């Protein structure tokens, strides 16, 4: 690893149009948040990809561990009663 103090890494999130949520677009290096925003504009919105940008230093993201996948997400897979299709309705009820 280099000893120099490099520009930190930032994650970029773009809202593609009003009404949609911001979505992860990629990452880039920048000295600070303002610069990250300017560079995100040049790198990720050259073709009208967005109307709003969020940037966040990558270090600040806490991610789940893939090894915990089962304990985190498996419990949801057998709870079919959380879905509307679990419930039988008489035919007379057309919309519910």
């Amino acid at each position, binding site marked *: 690893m280099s000893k120099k103090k490099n520009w930190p890494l930032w994650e970029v999130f773009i809202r593609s149009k009003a009404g949609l949520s911001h979505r992860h677009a990629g990452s880039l290096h920048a000295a600070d948040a303002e610069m990250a925003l300017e560079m995100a504009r040049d790198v990720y919105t050259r073709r009208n990809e967005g109307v709003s940008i969020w940037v966040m230093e990558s270090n600040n993201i806490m991610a789940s561990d*893939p090894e915990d996948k089962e304990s985190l997400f498996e419990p949801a897979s057998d709870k079919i009663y959380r879905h509307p299709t679990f419930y039988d309705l008489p035919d007379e009820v057309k919309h519910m």
Partner: protein
Amino acid sequence: MAEKDLEKIFQDKVDAEIKIEPKDWMPDDYRKTLVRQISQHAHSEIVGMLPEANWITRAPSLKRKVALLAKIQDEAGHGLYLYSATETLGVERDDTIEDLHAGKAKYSSIFNYPTLTWADIGAVGWLVDGAAIMNQVPLCRCSFGPYSRAMVRVCKEESFHQRQGFSIMLAMANGTAEQKRMAQDAIDRWWWPSLMMFGPNDADSAHSAQSMKWKIKRFSNDELRQRFLDMTVAQCHLLGCEVPDPDLKFNEETGHWEMGPIDWDEFWNVVKGRGKCNRQRLRDRKGAYDEGEWVREAAMAYADKKQLRKKASQAA
């Protein structure tokens, strides 16, 4: 879990077309192969700007100039997407750049050829970007998530690159006798190097079999080269230009064009650093990086200072 079991889970996922993400377990060699391939791909995007940069101020019209500028800016962006993808594998961008500057990492050999006339900018867009797209489209389905996502973006943006090149070739090929001669001359010089971009013949390709098993690679070098040949010969004829291959012939039975042998001595010479522009490209690249050092430092110092000032004003 034992390494053998982890490897089986990994390969089963790959076989089932489930993407591998950065924090998932992966074999060391898979990681190494990806770091090597993606960083070389990133270096190629960045070095690839150099042969074109020479022609920005010499473009024949404003229309051609803005298109070329946009293409080169895309290439800078593509380099960044790809460096980001290598960073998800736990390497630092600066370290991969140091490897390039130390001659330890390669970039596509095609950029070691000079761009002598404006027609070369046409030929580069049409042939070099054309070959690159042929290589990159299957990479959109690569098993490693960040690489595949970067390639989707790159391919979407790059489709205009080839068209702008072909449009330059069309204008030249339908121009004056001198322009036509320049177009043919550019084709004569870029044709073979473009075909070499697909890499050694399948029988001599060192990393192919493993990469196919890992679904980093989807088609063999020769398969992709053949597709490129079939497409490009027709386009060359449309320009009214000649393909500089005396052995080129159409096989009625297979429906494919067949090419003469590639001069692999030339290919390996350029790979090993003896091409026309190897030294110049690396010198320019290293120069740009070294001369930018103070800018990067100053920006970091300024960011730190702003941060301190903000803290001080909050404390007061």
